[in-house]
């Protein structure tokens, strides 16, 4: 209620209280918004990064051959390291963190969060095993001792294949999770948020891997593959950002235009569009420029991914607090 009071608009002298109920109920929200803040924003980013990396690592492992091995290595490690903070962020975000294990009591197919918990567990396991397998190949357990021999028995290709479904799930389910609520900004865009987050996950993973592998010139072809994936994912991302903007419309889309969230959204669109353009440009230019532009594009793509998640989460707060948005979403069409 304290927040509600702070939100009270200015009243003009002589204005009766009835004027405050003409358009809405004293400007009070219709629904309750989520309580998620930066921990969840970072979880989304890291989850996307992890999922995207795993997909890239798997594709590289399956079809990329030896030139793509750095991608496989970096991808698998990145997938594992990026997902590590995830459960911690989620647990800390709980109202009763010590009860986190209650999530494991049930699985509910219609609850994206329930599926997400199990999906996160599945992915974490898969990322761990993939990383372990990779670590064995990289000699972290020595070359010929019993541990290394044991771990080498893990089926490398199978692990890569098995990681794809959990990876895609982790990268995109958070969009579905947002859409399965009453928050107008999310609900209106329910069909678009999953694909959007997926594209962003893939583009940010590709961008990160590009940045990580940038110095080694022998990865030119792998780099190109990454740049290509990034380009395609960015295309999807730019398209879907525009689709979200249009689908939201003037009322529900207000958070995308106003305030800090509006600026973040504009930033997300600008950086992803710029990244896309730079990638396109890079294709036309000689290799030296291509590399530099590519790296710049990757940085912009990462910035875009960050701004996108921040916009969506905090924009959701704004949207939930706007009664006009809820009414636009749920208006009777009579």
């Amino acid at each position, binding site marked *: *209620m304290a927040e509600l*009071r702070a939100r*009270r608009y200015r*009243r003009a002298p002589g204005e*009766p*209280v*009835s004027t*405050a109920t003409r358009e809405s*109920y004293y400007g009070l*929200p*219709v*629904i*309750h*918004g*989520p309580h998620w803040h930066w921990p969840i924003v970072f979880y989304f980013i890291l989850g996307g990064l992890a999922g995207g990396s795993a*997909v*890239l690592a798997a*594709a590289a492992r399956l*079809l*990329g*051959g030896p*030139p*793509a091995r750095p991608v496989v290595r970096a991808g698998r490690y990145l997938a594992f390291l990026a997902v590590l903070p995830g459960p911690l962020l989620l647990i800390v*975000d*709980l*109202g*009763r*963190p010590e009860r*986190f294990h*209650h999530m494991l*009591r049930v699985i509910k197919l*219609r*609850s994206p969060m*329930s599926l*997400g*918990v199990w999906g996160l567990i599945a992915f974490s396991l898969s990322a761990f095993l993939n990383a372990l397998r990779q670590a064995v190949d990289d000699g972290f357990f020595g070359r010929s001792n019993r541990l290394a021999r044991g771990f080498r028995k893990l089926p490398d290709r199978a692990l890569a294949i098995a990681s*794809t479904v959990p990876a*895609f799930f982790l990268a*995109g389910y958070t*969009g*579905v999770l947002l*859409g*399965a*609520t*009453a*928050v107008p900004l999310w*609900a209106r865009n329910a*069909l*678009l948020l*999953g*694909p959007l987050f*997926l594209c962003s996950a893939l583009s940010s993973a590709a961008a990160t891997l590009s940045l990580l592998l940038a110095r080694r010139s022998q990865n030119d072809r792998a780099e*190109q593959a990454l740049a290509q994936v990034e380009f*395609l994912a960015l295309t*999807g991302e730019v398209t879907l950002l525009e689709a979200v903007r249009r689908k939201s419309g003037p009322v529900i889309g207000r958070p995308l235009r106003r305030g800090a969230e509006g600026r973040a959204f504009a930033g997300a669109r600008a950086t992803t569009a710029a990244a896309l353009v730079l990638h396109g440009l890079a294709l036309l230019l000689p290799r030296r420029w291509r590399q530099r532009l590519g790296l710049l594009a990757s940085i912009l793509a990462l910035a875009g991914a960050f701004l996108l998640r921040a916009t969506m989460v905090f924009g959701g707060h704004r949207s*939930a607090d706007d009664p006009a948005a809820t009414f636009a*979403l749920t*208006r*009777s*069409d009579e």
Partner: protein
Amino acid sequence: MKGPAALEGTTRARPGAFGFLTDTTLCIGCKACEVACKQWNQLPMDDFGFTGMSYDNTGDLGATTWRHVAFIERISDREGRRPTTLAPFQSNWLMLSDVCKHCVNAGCMEACPTGAIIRTEFDTVVIQQDICNGCGYCVPACPFGVPALSPLDGKAHKCTLCYDRLKDGLEPACAKACPTDAIQFGPVHALMDRARARVSELRAQGVDARIYGDQALGGTGGIGGLNAFFILTAPPEVYNLPAKPELPQRRVLPAFFTTALAALALGIATLFSFRRVGRMHHG
């Protein structure tokens, strides 16, 4: 699909479902329901202060307010004239005792990842406090803004429809306290029959009455009806209620479907990109 008129006064409440009919036309805004609820459930006092929102200093349902009386002053007409002839029963100063709707298909329950939110033998929706871990997903999943997390214990809370009282054969505290029987408790189907008759009677007397919580209004979009439903005399938005909400989980499957399509597309694209790498190597 049935048209809206055919859905008026219908509910998909299960046999044996119990709930509320809150008939705002009988409400005098006394807030006995708010106090009885707090007293029975030993809920703490909320944030404190004069809001200037007519006589509503409570503002909203929350973790520690499970009945909230809303006040909407509609004293003057468009020309600023104050009326002296009033519509029968409650009019011109609308008062509504808001409560958890105990939806036939409940967004909060479907969202809950721990199974803390359950449907009881009375078909009411209850949050089990020994299981809830405060993930907060039920909060935005409710189309009506009912559950909330409590900063005092980190868990989600809402009206239990006095589950403990029902188990002992007593009616909920708010229904018991309501002096004009605006809050009526009973089997949902019987209450809906009563509501239909009451709405007809009101309309015959010139009152613009409607049921909120049947499948035509309020209990729409897969929600299937509200076990705690209302009779209103103005569009729902006036009372800060959504007219035609949707059960949010209806979007889960379609959203996963589009996401899967995107995954497929991106997956194929990714594979192709790396295939060229492999090819180039071998080639």
